[in-house]
C-alpha cells in the first residue's frame, strides 16, 4: 500500500492507552485498562494471557465489535494513520473484513449453520467490492485452495455441518484472508483443534501471512503456540500488558514474575517427573481489582512497594522491550 520507505517504517497499528470498560450493576469491569502496543506491517504479535485477562476484548476493541454495554472509554487505536475509536460506523464497516479481519476461537460456531459456504464467502467479497457473483465465486474458490482445501468447487456448495472442525477453521481463515487484509486478529483460532491440525494451521497461517505481508495479532493463552509463530509477544494480566518484547526476549529471559510463572507451568519445560510448578492463587476478580500491581497477591517477589502502580519500565535503546514490575527478574534465566 505505502509507497515510500518512510511510510513503511511507520507502524501499521498503534494502540495507545486503550481502556475498554463494562459498566455493570455491581460496578465497572475494567476489562482492558491502559493497553499500549504497536505493530508493523507483516509483523506477528502474540498477545498472551489467561482467560479474563482482556486479550480478546483488546482484539474486539480494535474491530469496534465490543458487545454492549462494553465501550472503549479512553485511549486511541490508530490504523494506518486513521483513528479507529472515533471512526463513524459505516467507515469502520468498510475496514472490517476488508483491511482488518478476524478469526474467532470456536470453529464450530463461527460459520452460520444455515448458509452455504459459497454464500458466506462471496458475501464477504461483495460487501466491500462489487465485482459480481461470478468473480466473487472465483475468488472464494481460490481462497479455499490457498488454505489447503481440496476440491473447492464441491466444498463451496456444502454447509458447515458437513465439515470437520479443522476444515471449518480453514474456511474461516480463508474468509478472513479473502480480501487480502493488512491485519488479521486471530482470537485463539487453534485452541479448539487437535494438536496435529493445530500445527498444520499454524504453519499455513504463518506462511500465508508472510507471503501476503499481512500483520497478525495472535491472541492465545498458550505460550508454546507463540514460541513458533510470533515475532513479538505482549503478556497480559488483569487488563494490562505486564511484559513485552521479542519472542526470544520474553520466553528466554522473562522479566515479570507472572511471565516466569506462566512459563514454568508449561509441562514440556519442566524436568521429567518433577512436580509442575504452578502460579499460586487465582486471577483477581474483574470487579474491585486491587490497587497497585494486580499480580502482587500471587507474586513471590511482592513487597510493600507493589501497592503502588508499577510503570512500564522500558529498556534503554529498546522501547519495545519492558515489564510492568517493581522487582523485575534478572536477565539470567
Amino acid at each position, binding site marked *: 500500500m505505502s509507497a515510500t520507505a518512510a511510510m513503511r517504517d511507520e507502524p501499521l497499528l498503534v494502540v495507545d492507552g486503550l481502556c475498554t470498560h463494562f459498566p455493570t450493576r455491581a460496578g465497572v469491569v475494567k476489562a482492558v485498562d491502559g493497553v499500549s502496543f504497536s505493530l508493523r506491517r507483516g509483523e506477528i504479535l502474540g498477545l498472551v494471557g489467561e482467560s479474563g485477562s482482556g486479550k480478546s476484548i483488546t482484539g474486539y476493541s480494535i*474491530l469496534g*465489535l465490543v*458487545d454492549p454495554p462494553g465501550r472503549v472509554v479512553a485511549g486511541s487505536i490508530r490504523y494506518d494513520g486513521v483513528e479507529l475509536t472515533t471512526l463513524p460506523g459505516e467507515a469502520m*464497516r*468498510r*475496514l*472490517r*473484513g*476488508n483491511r482488518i*479481519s*478476524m478469526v*474467532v*476461537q*470456536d470453529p464450530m*460456531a*463461527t*460459520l*452460520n*449453520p*444455515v*448458509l*452455504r459456504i459459497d454464500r458466506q464467502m462471496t*458475501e*464477504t467479497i461483495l*460487501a*466491500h467490492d462489487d465485482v459480481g457473483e461470478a468473480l466473487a465465486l472465483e475468488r472464494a474458490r481460490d481462497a479455499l485452495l490457498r488454505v489447503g482445501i481440496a476440491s473447492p468447487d464441491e466444498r463451496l456448495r456444502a*454447509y458447515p*455441518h*458437513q465439515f470437520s472442525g479443522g476444515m471449518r477453521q480453514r474456511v*474461516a481463515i480463508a*474468509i*478472513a484472508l479473502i480480501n487480502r487484509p493488512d491485519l488479521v486478529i486471530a482470537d485463539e483460532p487453534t485452541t479448539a483443534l487437535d494438536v496435529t491440525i493445530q500445527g498444520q494451521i499454524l504453519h499455513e497461517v504463518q506462511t500465508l501471512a508472510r507471503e501476503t505481508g499481512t500483520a497478525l495479532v495472535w491472541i492465545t493463552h498458550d505460550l508454546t503456540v507463540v514460541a513458533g509463530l510470533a515475532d513479538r509477544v505482549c503478556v497480559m494480566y488483569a487488563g494490562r500488558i505486564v511484559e513485552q518484547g521479542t519472542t526470544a526476549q520474553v520466553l528466554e529471559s522473562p522479566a515479570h514474575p507472572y511471565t516466569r510463572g506462566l512459563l514454568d507451568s508449561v509441562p514440556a519445560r519442566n524436568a521429567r517427573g518433577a512436580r509442575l510448578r504452578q502460579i499460586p492463587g487465582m486471577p483477581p476478580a474483574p470487579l474491585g481489582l486491587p490497587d497497585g500491581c494486580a499480580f502482587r497477591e500471587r507474586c513471590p517477589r511482592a513487597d510493600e512497594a507493589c501497592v503502588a502502580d508499577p510503570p512500564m519500565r522500558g529498556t534503554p535503546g529498546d522501547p519495545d522491550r519492558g515489564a510492568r514490575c517493581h522487582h523485575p527478574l534478572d536477565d539470567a534465566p
Partner: protein
Amino acid sequence: MTAFVIRRLIESVVVLFAMSLIVFVGVYAIGNPVDILINPQAEPLERERAIAALGLDRPLWEQYVTFLRGAVTGDLGRSFVHATPALGLIVEKMPATLELAFVAMLLAVVLGIPLGLWAGLKPDALSGRAIMAGSILGFSLPTFWVGLMLIMVFSVMLGWLPSNGRGPTVDVLGIGVSFLTVDGWRHLILPATNLALFKLALLIRLTRAGTREALLQDYVKFARAKGLPQRRVIGVHVLRNILIPIVTVAGLELGSVIAFAIVTESVFAWPGMGKLLIDSINLLDRPVIVAYLLVIVAIFITINLVVDVLYSALDPRVRLTESRG
C-alpha cells in the same frame, strides 16, 4: 424426501385411527341425545323407532364398527339434527373458518416478526419496551373481552365496521370467500384482528427471544467482523436462524386457530366451523362432533407435515439426516 412423506402418511393413518377410537368413546360417554332429540311426549313405540333409526339401540362397539366401516369410505356418519352427512356440514362451514384463520395468522406473522426483531435489537430502548408491554396485553386480555371491545369501539361508537357475519361472499371454484371484496374485508378485519392478537403476542416474544440469542452467537460476530452491513447481518444471518423455531410455532398456531376460533366466531357471529361445533355440542349431535374432531386432527397432521418439509428447507442439518433416513 418421498420416503419421509410416505412414512409420515402411514403414521397419520395410525394417529387418525387412535383418535377416532378415543373421540368416539369419549363423546358417547356424555349425555343422552335421545332426551334432546326426541319429543318427550312421543309414544313409546315411536320413541323406540327413532332410537333405532339413529342406531342408538346398538351396543357401543357395534356403533363404532359401523362408524369405522363408513369412515373408510369417507362417510363420517349423518347428523342427528340435520339428517345430512356430518362431513358435508363441516366442509360447508370450513371456508369461512379457514379464511378467518389464514388472515389472522398472516396478520400475526407480518406484524409479529418485524416487531419482535425490533424489540430484540433494541431491548433497552423505549420502543422495544413498549412492544414488549403491548405483547403482555395481547397475552393476558381474554379473547372474548377484546372482541367485545373491538365491536364496542369500531362498530358501535365509531360505526366504521360491521359487528357480525361474513357479508357477501364471492364464489371462487365453488367456494365462497370474503377477501376479494372491500365489504368482505370490512367484515373480516375485526374478527381477524381479534383472533390474531394472541398469536401476534406469541410471535413477538418468540422472535425477540430468538433474536437476542442469535445476536450473541459467534456466527453473528463473525458476520460483523466480515464487514457485512447491518441489514444483511440481521436480514440474512439472524433471520434465517430464528425462522426455524418461528415456522414450527406458527404452523402449530395456525392449526389451533383453525380448530379453536370458536370464541371469536361466537362473538362476531362468524358462520364458521367453530359455531357449528358449539351448536352440535349443545344438541349432542354426536356424529358432527366426532367428524369435526377427526377433521381437526387431519388438519393438524397436514400442517405438521408441511412444517416438517419447510423445516428441512430452512435447516440444512435436518435435510441431511432425512435424506439418509
